[in-house]
Each structure stands twice: as C-alpha cells, then as structure tokens.
C-alpha cells in the first residue's frame, strides 16, 4: 500500500534493491528485540509500534496507514472497493455463495463495482472524508485472480488521486505472477493471508485450489499454495515492497502451528504479522461453520499473539473490516456511498485541502505522543508484576471520547509498569443483530470485556455503572475527552498505589468472548 507520491517506488527500489532490502531487513531484525531493559521488556513492541520503534524508512511508509500502524488507525481511514469477486482457491472459513473476502470471515459485500465505478467512489469518498488515505482491494475474491480489474482500478486512481496509498490483500496463489506489476504501480504494501506452511495442516483449511488450468485437492493443493505464498513473499521483500501477513487462528487446526508460520514469514522479510480469530457460526454456511469448528477466545488469541510477539511486530488492531467498508477502522459509512449515490455526485478532488487537513492531524498525533511520554515519566521507578487490561470507548483521535451506551467496540489496553500497550479491540454491536434483545446488550458487553479490570468511557448511565461494578469491572468516566494512554497510565499508577496501601486487592480476571460477525453499521442499525 503505497503513497504514489512520497516513496521512491518502482525504479528507486529496483536499482539498488539488494542493498536496500538487506538494510531494511537488518533493521527490522534488530528492532524485534524491543530494546526495553528489564521487567516485561516487550512493551514498546508490537502493534503499538510508534515512531521510535521502527526504522525511519519503514515508519515513513506506514505511519499514515491505518491498517499497519495502530497509532495511525486512530486518525486515518481506509476504504476497500470490491472490484474483484473471482477467487482461485477455496477456504473452509469462506462461503462463496454469499461472497467473501480475503480476510477471516464470510464477507458480506453488497455491490460489485467496475474499475471505473470504483475509481469514482474513491474520489467521492476522499473528497468527503479527508482522513481517507488508503485504498485497498481485498475481497470478495482475490484481487490477483482478477488482475485486469485490480490493476485498472489502481491505474485510474493513481492518475486522479495521487496522494492515496494503494494496497492489495491476496491469498498468495497468484502473487509471484504479479509482483512485477505491483511494483510498477508503486504498491509498496501487500497483505498475504498465510494460515499454514505445512501442507498437512493446509489440507484441513483449503479443500481445493485452481492453479495452471487445473483443480488440485488436499495436501497437493496446500503444498502448491504454501510454496507460492512463500515465493511471493520473498519476491516482495527482494523488491522492497512491505508485506503484512494475516493468519486466521483456527483452534485445534493451526493454532500451535502459527508459531512456525510466524518464524517462516519473519525469516522471509514480512514486516507485520496479524493473527486474527476465526469467525465461525453455522448461519454463515461455511464449512467450518457447519462442522461446528469454534473460534478462539480472547485469552487464547492474546496468548498466541504474545508468544509470537518476541519474533516480530504483531498487529492487534485489525477489525477484519468488511471488504467494501468505508471509514475509520471500526466505523462504517458505506451506506453514504452506494453506487447509485456516487454516480450522481459531482466530485471535485481537492488535493490542497486534503493536505491541510492531514497536517492538522499530524499535530494532534504529536500531542498524543507527548502526553503519553510525560505520563510515562511518572511511572519511572515503579516496580510491580501486576498487569491488567482495560477497555476504552473511543471515537478516534486517541481519546476517551465515546459514551458507554454508544460504543460499538472497545479498545483494549494492557497496563503494566512498562506503560499502556494496545492489545486488541472487542466489538459489542452484535446485540443489535438477531438473537439478542436490548436487555441483553449489557450482558453481551460484559462478556466481551470480562477480562478487563476497568472500562474508560466519556459518559455512562447509573444502571450500567452498577452492573459493571457487580461484574467486577470498574467504570471510569473521570478521563472523558482525555488522551487514552496518558489516562490509562495515570489510572494504573493510582491503582498500584491503592494495592500498595491495601485499599484494593489485585485479582486476575477471567476470559472474554470474541463476537462472531462482521462489523457493519448497516447491519447494526
């Protein structure tokens, strides 16, 4: 996913590819040790990666990319367009009868766009939402199984909106055939979904693939797929194109194995590894849904992410967004931009005002970082083994600024004397969909954040406050409108003081449930 503008791009990278890539990989490798000394030294690592954690040339590529930088996803938005519905493999977590995306859950794409329609949509959205900086072509289907449509879309957008970064997500089967072209279109980030490197494991995930005019099954199919995926990854690395690996965690099938996958992709130069939970329910009509294959719990997911974290950057803020989603991660405005509405819109693309807006965002981000740094200093000298999770209701901007009752998701931070680390998010909007009545909504939220000690909100009513307390979760509204990390560290310091003085006793919390279903405001409404 590349900004066409600021990066050296195809030629720049190609001409000195060898040296450059080695250098970058070297820096990534050095980085993975996460230089904090003593205690739980990983705190500066992972999805929380900020400016100080990454080599500058990589930070430059990813800093405004909401799908890659946990920090950026508070401030910038991405959109996906669905132009490529065909796919060349079958995954057991995908039901292609109702479309699907190259992510971990059955996708629900409402419309299929031509490249021309997609380009117009992107311009319309970017003119309306200045923080929209990234266009992805993901699913339903595989963008590289539809190369003409995918590259035509990129070509149109690169012409009219040169400041938008372009990215693709692929299952990797066709990747080696298209690396050259990706590099030509200045796409410097690619996401590959890699769920296994062992064909025996793969045979349980992929019933078949379509490759070189033939359908292959079972182990033979999985062997071809893994070879192609890893070859594609190596080719990207050689050309200086950053690659993120998505893996779907399927308990009992590849959960242990993903540690091996993590090593394999890291050694081939992947820059981020995003482990996502399997989303599976019978009504999705997927093979896994129908066989009753369960997804992981929040604790299982976090344990696996933690065990891979020492190895490389883990990404935990991914929301497995809908393929045609529009907006900040976690917020979906696609209903405003249906094909009919867009085709009627008069679009004028104003590069200057977009730049001005983004400059203001940069200032805000600097303020967040500064506030966190100042608060961290107050923790210096504190020593404690206590680690706790908190849930935060936020609308973006890195602040505690959402009402408890309006939150569709909570961001989860792990607090320790090493600071506040973003570790994931919990969606809670399921109660609006089939099965759960309004009265149950609070119970659903409590189940989703049951592993947290506290929940930070801008505002909360008396009733939910009492119910949360009864469940052992501290409702905190004193930080309304303030920066999340700064507030979290202040809260943690206060908590440690209370534990020391004997005012509160620290107890571990239980596990939490991962909600099954895609996040869409259309469904939730």
């Amino acid at each position: 996913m590349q900004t066409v503008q600021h990066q050296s791009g195809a030629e720049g990278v190609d001409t000195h590819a060898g040296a450059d890539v080695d250098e970058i990989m070297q820096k990534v490798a050095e980085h993975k040790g996460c230089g904090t000394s003593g205690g739980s030294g990983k705190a500066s690592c992972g999805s929380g990666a900020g400016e100080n954690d990454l080599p500058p040339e990589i930070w430059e590529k990813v800093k405004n990319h909401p799908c890659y930088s946990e920090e950026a996803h508070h401030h910038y938005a991405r959109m996906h367009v669905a132009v490529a519905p065909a796919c060349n493999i079958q995954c057991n977590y995908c039901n292609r009868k109702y479309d699907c995306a190259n992510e971990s859950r059955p996708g629900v794409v409402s419309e299929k766009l031509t490249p021309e329609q997609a380009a117009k949509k992107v311009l319309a959205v970017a003119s309306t939402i200045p923080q929209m900086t990234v266009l992805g072509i993901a699913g339903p289907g595989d963008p590289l199984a539809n190369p003409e449509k995918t590259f035509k879309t990129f070509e149109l957008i690169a012409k009219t909106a040169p400041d938008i970064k372009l990215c693709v997500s692929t299952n990797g089967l066709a990747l080696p055939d298209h690396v050259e072209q990706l590099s030509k279109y200045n796409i410097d980030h690619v996401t590959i979904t890699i769920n296994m490197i062992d064909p025996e494991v793969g045979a349980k995930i992929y019933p078949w693939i379509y490759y070189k005019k033939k359908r292959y099954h079972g182990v033979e199919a999985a062997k071809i797929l893994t070879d192609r995926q890893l070859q594609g990854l190596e080719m990207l690395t050689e050309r200086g194109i950053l690659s993120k690996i998505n893996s779907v965690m399927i308990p009992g099938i590849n959960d242990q194995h993903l540690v091996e996958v993590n090593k394999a992709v890291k050694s081939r130069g992947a820059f981020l590894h995003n482990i996502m939970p399997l989303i599976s329910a019978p009504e999705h009509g997927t093979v896994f849904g129908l066989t009753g294959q369960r997804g992981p719990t929040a604790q299982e997911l976090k344990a696996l992410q933690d065990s891979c974290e020492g190895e490389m950057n883990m990404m935990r803020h991914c929301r497995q967004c809908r393929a045609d989603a529009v907006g900040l991660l976690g917020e979906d405005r696609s209903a405003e931009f249906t094909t009919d509405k867009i085709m009627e819109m008069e679009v004028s693309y104003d590069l200057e005002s977009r730049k001005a807006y983004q400059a203001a965002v940069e200032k805000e981000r600097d303020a967040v970082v500064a506030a966190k740094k100042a608060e961290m200093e107050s923790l210096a000298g504190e020593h404690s083994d206590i680690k706790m999770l908190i849930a935060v209701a936020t609308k973006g901007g890195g602040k505690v600024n959402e009402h408890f009752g309006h939150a569709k998701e909570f961001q989860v931070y792990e607090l320790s004397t090493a600071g506040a680390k973003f570790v994931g998010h919990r969606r809670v909007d399921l109660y609006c969909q089939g099965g759960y009545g309004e009265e149950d909504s609070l119970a659903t939220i409590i189940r989703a954040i049951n592993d947290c000690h506290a929940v930070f909100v801008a505002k909360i009513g008396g009733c939910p406050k009492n119910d949360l307390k009864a469940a052992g979760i501290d409702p905190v509204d004193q930080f309304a409108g303030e920066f999340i990390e700064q507030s979290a560290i202040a809260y943690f310091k206060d908590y440690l003081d209370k534990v020391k003085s004997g005012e509160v006793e620290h107890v571990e919390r239980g596990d939490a449930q991962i909600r099954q279903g895609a996040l869409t405001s259309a469904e939730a409404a």
Partner: protein
Amino acid sequence: MAYKIVKDNCTGCSACEPECPNQAISETKDGLFVIDPAKCTECIGHHDEAQCVAVCPIDDTCIIDDNYPRYQAA
C-alpha cells in the same frame, strides 16, 4: 456438446469467464453468467478438465447440458 450454468447456483463471481478457452461464457444483465452452447467444446482439445467446472466455487453449478450431444473432437 456443451456445459451449462445452473442459474440458481451461480453467484456471479465471474471466475469462469476469463478461463474459458472458447470465450463461451458471458455475463447476463442480472450479473450472472451463461455459457453459449454453440461455442463450448467442453474444453476438449484445450485442457484436461472443463475450466468452468474447475474454477467455479459452487459445486454442481457448471454441469453437462443434456440437451446437447457430447462434443466430438474434430
């Protein structure tokens, strides 16, 4: 000769269209796909298996059309 696409099963994913060696597959107004029986050779002479069948994600969607005799290679 010829395969056909079972309309009720087709998702309109378009995967089959570019794979057909005879350009026998095209999109209809409703976004689904059809095979022109006059052009379909069951892939005989081109590939070992019928390409539309091999790539289609939905089982039993691209099937032999019994209204036509099996294709005879020239």
